[in-house]
């Protein structure tokens, strides 16, 4: 049976990808940030997930205004890194898990989540930067990501985005779907984006460390309550792009405790300001044996 063993939460700033790709990770500006992911890379080497269910948002890359899906699940075999205007990131193609993805789609749609099924999608920094942070740059001798990835894109670009509670409930449905899949698989679910940031207008550059850290506290301890926070609070407290944090609630909703199991173990927690315009938060939660 497939099992969700852990959830991972991390920001996904494009400048982080650029810093990696241009070899700047040891510069004084970037060093503290990347040091914050040293533990995570070692942890992933030990965990060896088979599949990562990766919740992210497209930043006007694969989806233009022609079609804006609220929730889109990738059921393809492969996804190429996107050219976001600076050329594609020099990272491997992403390999999907079509059978598990199709299984999840079927289960979750029957649970009244109105997914869009996607078979063709270039993936932008929202998906590739978390992979780089958690797995490092794959060596040329074995140039591939160490696991399969199911991309799950959430609309957080055009308002209204899905509510925190909708995301949390969706996480529950995803858990049910994954854990009903026949094959033995070690599955992680990642929530990416955020934390506080605003990329627009005279209010650009807003950062709210206190709110961010309270978000991390509550995500660990009382996610169902946190899911009730309305959009407007994200905008007001964490900046217009801070709304990306609703995606973390999907990953959190898929953890065992939400379905009546034991509380997850907080394996790692990290917070750093700034990466470019953004506050970087990172959290690893492991499910515990019942």
């Amino acid at each position, binding site marked *: 049976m497939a099992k969700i063993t852990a959830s991972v939460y991390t920001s996904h700033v494009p400048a982080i990808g650029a810093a990696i790709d241009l070899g700047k990770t040891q510069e004084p500006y970037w060093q503290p940030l990347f040091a914050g992911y040293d533990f995570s890379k070692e942890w992933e080497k030990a965990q060896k997930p088979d599949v990562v269910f990766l919740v992210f948002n497209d930043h006007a890359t694969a989806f233009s205004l022609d079609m804006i899906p609220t929730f889109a699940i990738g059921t393809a075999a492969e996804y190429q890194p996107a050219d976001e*205007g600076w050329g594609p990131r020099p990272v491997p193609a992403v390999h999907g898990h079509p059978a598990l993805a199709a299984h999840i789609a079927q289960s979750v749609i029957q649970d009244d989540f109105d997914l869009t099924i996607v078979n063709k999608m270039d993936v932008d920094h929202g998906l590739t930067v978390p992979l780089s942070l958690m797995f490092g740059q794959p060596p040329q001798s074995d140039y591939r990501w160490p696991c399969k990835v199911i991309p799950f894109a959430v609309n957080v670009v055009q308002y209204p985005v899905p509510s925190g509670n909708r995301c949390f409930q969706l996480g529950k449905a995803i858990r049910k779907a994954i854990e009903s899949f026949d094959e033995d698989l070690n599955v992680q679910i990642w929530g990416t984006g955020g934390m506080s940031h605003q990329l627009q207008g005279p209010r650009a550059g807003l*950062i709210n460390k206190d709110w961010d850290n309270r978000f991390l506290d509550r995500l660990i301890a009382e996610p169902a309550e946190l899911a009730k926070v309305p959009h407007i609070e994200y905008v007001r407290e964490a900046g217009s792009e801070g709304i990306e944090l609703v995606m973390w609630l999907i990953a959190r909703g898929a953890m065992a405790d939400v379905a009546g199991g034991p509380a997850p173990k907080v394996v790692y927690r990290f917070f750093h300001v700034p990466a470019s315009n953004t506050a970087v938060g990172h959290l690893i939660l492991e499910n515990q044996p019942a």
Partner: protein
Amino acid sequence: MSLDKPYLDVPGTIIFDAEQSRKGYWLNQFCMSLMKAENRERFKADERAYLDEWAMTEEQKQAVLARDLNWCMRTGGNIYFLAKIGATDGKSFQQMAGSMTGMTEEEYRNMMVGGGRSPEGNRFLGEDGDAQPQHQPQGKAGHKTTGSN
């Protein structure tokens, strides 16, 4: 009754909702076209001619030519779309975001390294934070005319 827009009272912020999206449709689709290298070349070779291929308003075209991202946003642009113009110009997200504050690149960068902009006074229109309309433009650009920040 129309739907609530509880986000209209956040200073220095335009939420990209359905109404903005309709207003900015062609502006944003023009931006998307810059994801192809050959279109970036064509745009750089003759910006006006390239813009004229799109059903944008004259104001939207002027805003793009002026690289005034706040103006672009008022006409319906969204930052993730507008970022394609910045990418074409070789600008980073930090440079683009900073350009909307009036600060110099260095001023904005220093603000971020110092922990970013505080939410204090910037939650509601009518407060007195640095993102409020009465404090624009920010940084040295603002000091010149108002003598205070």
